[in-house]
């Protein structure tokens, strides 16, 4: 194992001076009287002769301590495996089916190890430099897998056997003869894991290296595969609320898995996961793993926009009747199609829908269709609704945008304030301090101790009422009831005030529409549009703020998604402007869509994007829906 220490090997046992050696399955001598394992290996190994379980226990438990902390020998990927294991367990307690952990995530992970040549292949990276694996015909100790190319399973908590980490006996054998790089002896570059130093230096082309944020991408892929009722934004929110281990996940590693040195760079996390980032990583991993097409997202799936729209309409306290309209928009834009929604990493352009963002964007579009959100019409419609509601107290009340705004604004501000406070109070540092080298170990530990002491002192000054512990996890962040005037529920309110009957169909009273983005960015910068808040109406800003807070995403990100939905909804308008803008700056205000005839009018964004002007023409221009 340690070549340096092998030099110290004497004929007599270093611990008990006895001369009575046995052989471990890794080809090492161990003292049969005191179970001290030497670092010298025998040249020819015959593993069959030695009972495995006993040796593993020896392997793990009775290692002699070295200068630095000496725990088990473990690999970086085992660390990640442990984190994934914890996350999968956490998801299970959140109510996700057990198959996610036992089948999907486990398979993804195995595939990852194989693709990144860390295991389940003929020449794992770790052993290739040393000696060829001789364990080919070794019976697998994995009780679960039977893939033919499987060489060995990893020892750390197997996905199947929960609680394995507490029972060393269940651990299966070490995968490879572990040979620590000699440089790890030097104080400056070291790591608690066997391959921490090598791992952080590894830069192979075409290999997606595992990072802590990528564990979430794995979870999300598994959730998507299982079509579970947790979206990416939900997942990240659960991480934030500490329901899913992420920051300091290494804290829960078994006692004997020591982390220091380079492991710090690999496992310590000082930022919250970010939607866009994890989303990108998801696609990246799925492509890397060469995953087949995911199970279809059909209308009865939670991730289908119709379902998600319903959920978010409830969440933000909008009338249920709006669901009809969102379904229309979904249909017209074609974002409800199975092919559009289903993730297919092998496709030419691997791309998956941002289900939650998209659903929310649809709601924003519907709000724009109904209320225009130009800081004017929505208020005059509210006046009408208010008057009607005063007169007709018995009837189903008309939806009053102003009232809704007041309620939402208040709740949102409170929520945001609380969120900011909890963020400011978040404790990032783990109880186990991480240090770079033996030199700063004592400093780091002392500092940690100091902080703990000081924290103790200040916590005595805090009110004895314990800070409200973990919120129990919920898909919903808001909660509306009829009784509390601050939490008035608008779900049952009707949209009659904003719709009119025209023949057989209902159309919106509002006949105008303005586009969030008039011209999409075609340059090589990655974004398709920008969001300069001050160019938009206040109600639009509020709506965008509200939803982006719910999903914990950037406002510009949501704005972009709204623009993309509009692009699909008003295809003809966009194609027309493209043709016409070259000829003349002024375009025909009549934009006819296949289904929708919409007058597109510029509001404030006009100033920003002067390429095309749509004048209003009075008359019966209606955004006809249905």
């Amino acid at each position: 194992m340690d070549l340096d220490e092998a030099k110290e090997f004497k004929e007599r046992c270093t611990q008990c001076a006895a001369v009575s050696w046995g052989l471990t399955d890794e080809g090492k001598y161990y003292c049969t009287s005191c179970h001290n394992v030497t670092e010298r290996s025998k040249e020819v190994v015959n593993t069959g002769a030695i009972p495995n379980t006993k040796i593993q226990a020896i392997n793990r438990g009775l290692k002699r301590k070295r200068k630095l902390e000496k725990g088990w020998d473990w690999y970086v990927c085992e660390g990640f495996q442990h984190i994934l294991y914890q996350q999968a367990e956490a998801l299970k307690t959140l109510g996700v089916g057990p198959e996610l952990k036992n089948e999907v995530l486990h398979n993804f992970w195995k595939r990852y190890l194989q693709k990144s040549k860390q295991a389940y292949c003929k020449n794992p990276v770790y052993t290739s430099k040393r000696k060829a694996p001789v364990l080919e015909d070794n019976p697998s100790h994995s009780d679960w897998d039977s893939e033919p190319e499987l060489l060995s399973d990893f020892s750390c908590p197997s996905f199947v056997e929960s609680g394995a980490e507490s029972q060393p006996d269940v651990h299966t054998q070490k995968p490879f003869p572990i040979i620590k790089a000699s440089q790890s002896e030097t104080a400056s570059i070291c790591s608690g894991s066997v391959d921490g130093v090598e791992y952080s230096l590894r830069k192979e082309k075409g290999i997606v290296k595992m990072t802590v944020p990528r564990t979430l991408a794995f979870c999300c892929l598994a959730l998507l595969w299982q079509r579970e009722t947790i979206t990416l934004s939900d997942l990240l929110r659960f991480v934030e609320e500490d329901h899913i281990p992420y920051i300091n996940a290494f804290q829960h590693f078994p006692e004997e898995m020591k982390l220091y040195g380079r492991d710090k760079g690999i496992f310590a996390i000082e930022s919250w996961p970010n939607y866009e980032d994890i989303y990108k990583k998801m696609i990246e991993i799925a492509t890397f793993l060469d995953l087949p097409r995911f199970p279809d997202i059909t209308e009865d799936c939670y991730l289908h926009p119709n379902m998600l729209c319903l959920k978010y309409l409830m969440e933000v306290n909008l009338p249920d009747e709006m669901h009809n309209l969102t379904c229309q928009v979904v249909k017209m834009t074609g974002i409800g199609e199975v092919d559009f929604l289903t993730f297919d990493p092998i496709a030419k352009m691997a791309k998956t829908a941002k289900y939650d963002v998209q659903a929310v964007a649809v709601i924003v579009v519907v709000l724009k269709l109904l209320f225009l959100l130009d800081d004017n019409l929505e208020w005059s419609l509210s006046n009408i609704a208010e008057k009607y509601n005063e007169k007709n107290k018995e009837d189903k009340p008309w939806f009053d945008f102003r009232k809704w705004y007041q309620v939402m604004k208040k709740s949102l501000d409170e929520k945001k304030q609380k969120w900011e406070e909890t963020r400011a109070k978040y404790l990032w540092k783990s109880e186990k301090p991480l240090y770079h080298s033996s030199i700063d170990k004592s400093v780091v530990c002392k500092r940690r101790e100091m902080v703990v002491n000081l924290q103790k002192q200040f916590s005595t000054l805090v009110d004895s009422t314990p800070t409200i512990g973990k919120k129990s996890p919920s898909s919903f962040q808001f909660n509306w009831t009829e009784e509390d005037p601050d939490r008035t529920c608008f779900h049952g309110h009707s949209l009659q005030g904003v719709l009119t009957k025209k023949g057989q169909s209902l159309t919106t009273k509002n006949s105008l529409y303005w586009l969030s983005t008039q011209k999409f960015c075609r340059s090589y910068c990655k974004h398709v549009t920008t969001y300069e808040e001050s160019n938009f109406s206040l109600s639009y800003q509020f709506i965008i703020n509200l939803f982006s807070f719910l999903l914990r995403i950037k406002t510009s990100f949501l704005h972009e998604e709204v623009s993309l939905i509009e692009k699909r909804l008003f295809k003809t308008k966009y194609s027309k402007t493209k043709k016409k803008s070259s000829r003349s700056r002024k375009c025909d205000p009549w934009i006819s869509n296949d289904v929708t005839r919409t007058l597109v009018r510029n509001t404030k964004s006009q100033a920003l994007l002067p390429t095309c002007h749509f004048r209003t023409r009075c008359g019966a221009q209606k955004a006809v829906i249905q």
Partner: protein
Amino acid sequence: MTLSRFLSRRQFCLLPPPPHRPQALFILGMSDFSEELIKSTTEDDQGERCELSGTGMHFPWLQKHIETVATGGKKEKDFAQTTSACLSFIQEALLKHQWQQAAEYMHSYLQVLEDSDSCKRQAAPEIIWKLGSEILYYHPKSNVEAFNTFADRMKNIGVMNYLKISLQHALYLLHHGMLEDANRNLSQAETWRYGEKSSSQEVLINLIQAYKGLLQYYAWSKKKMELSQLDKDDYAYNTASQNMLDHSWKTSVNLGALIQIPGVWDPFVKGYVEMLEFYGDQDGAREVLTNYAYDEKFPSNPNAHIYLYNFLKREKAPREKLISVLKILYQIVPSHKLMLEFHRLLRKSEKEEHHKLGLEVLFGVLDFAGCTKNITAWKYLAKYLRQTLMGSHLAWVQEEWSSRKNWWPGFHFSYFWAKSDWKEDKALACEKALVAGVLSGKGCRYFRYISKQDHQVFRKKIKRMKKLVKKYSIVNPGL
């Protein structure tokens, strides 16, 4: 009060202060403290403090701006966001005196000590000390022990703050009347050494020694009080005086070193001079005070001149000398109480330029809103105006008046003031009316209001006033 005021002033500038700042900061705390310590002699140096606090101009937002520029495109980690958000929550809580909330946020802010950014990590102890000591000073559940524990802990995080924290810890103890503990603390800090002292640390060591000296001075002046109550023939008298001698020797060593360094050391100087005077070393005392007032390396400090003036007055120095000292004070603080005394000195002088200056000084004093009801000043002005005009120096009066005639009538001689002055202080009203009449004529509202009053006691006075105005008013000199 002291420590808190001293700390709260600084909670707006949580960044490591520039090298010159510590002195000024300590002075802020210290001057208040010395008032408590030596209550008897501090009357004359109040009111000038504000000047000092004005020097600590600070733009926290600017620093923030610079910081963001420095990091450039590098994305700030959320850890850093947490700590900076936490910091602003603490500051807000402190401003609103929500000690409980502040402590709550402090609990999480402490993790900044483990920041992976070494720059922030090193700046953290000082910020934590400032915020933490503020919280512990005010928090209802806090006590001296808690503060001591906190201070001892903070002293040993990093080496750069040891002395500063020790000093402030000592100040805290003084507030709680724990003089002995404070002294022990200072002694401990005094002997602390860490490698090569940086220049700022040297000043701190001097300050610590000086504070020790100040404590000794306090003990000394207590002994002096005891001694003054003892009979000279008493057996105890000798031992007590011997005791005092010992003290003074130690103290002078401690104090003497500090006041060589340019800075504002009022209480130290005062104590030192008092001791020197007590033991008859007048020359030494004069030298210290002259140096303190006139050395150009020292910041401009009105108190330095006041101390020197008071000393010279005690010494019965010639008038010329006193005038030259007060002239400088007049330039720094034209509204100071001593200006009336200055006026008297000038009036008595033989030189004509001094007489002119005397008039200027009086006008200068009354330019300040705080002096509008100072009857002595008005009396002096009324008298001196008459004297000047009698001496046919109309030009002097006109010169002074020309810059004031736009605003003095509204400022001093309004109808409103006439009414309220007459109601509150008739003598003052009479003096003012005379001045008003002389300066802006009989038509002046103030004069007219007062002269119309009918009052038994003041009838005579008002009559005389009317006569004087008629005679001397500068508005219609011909009549």
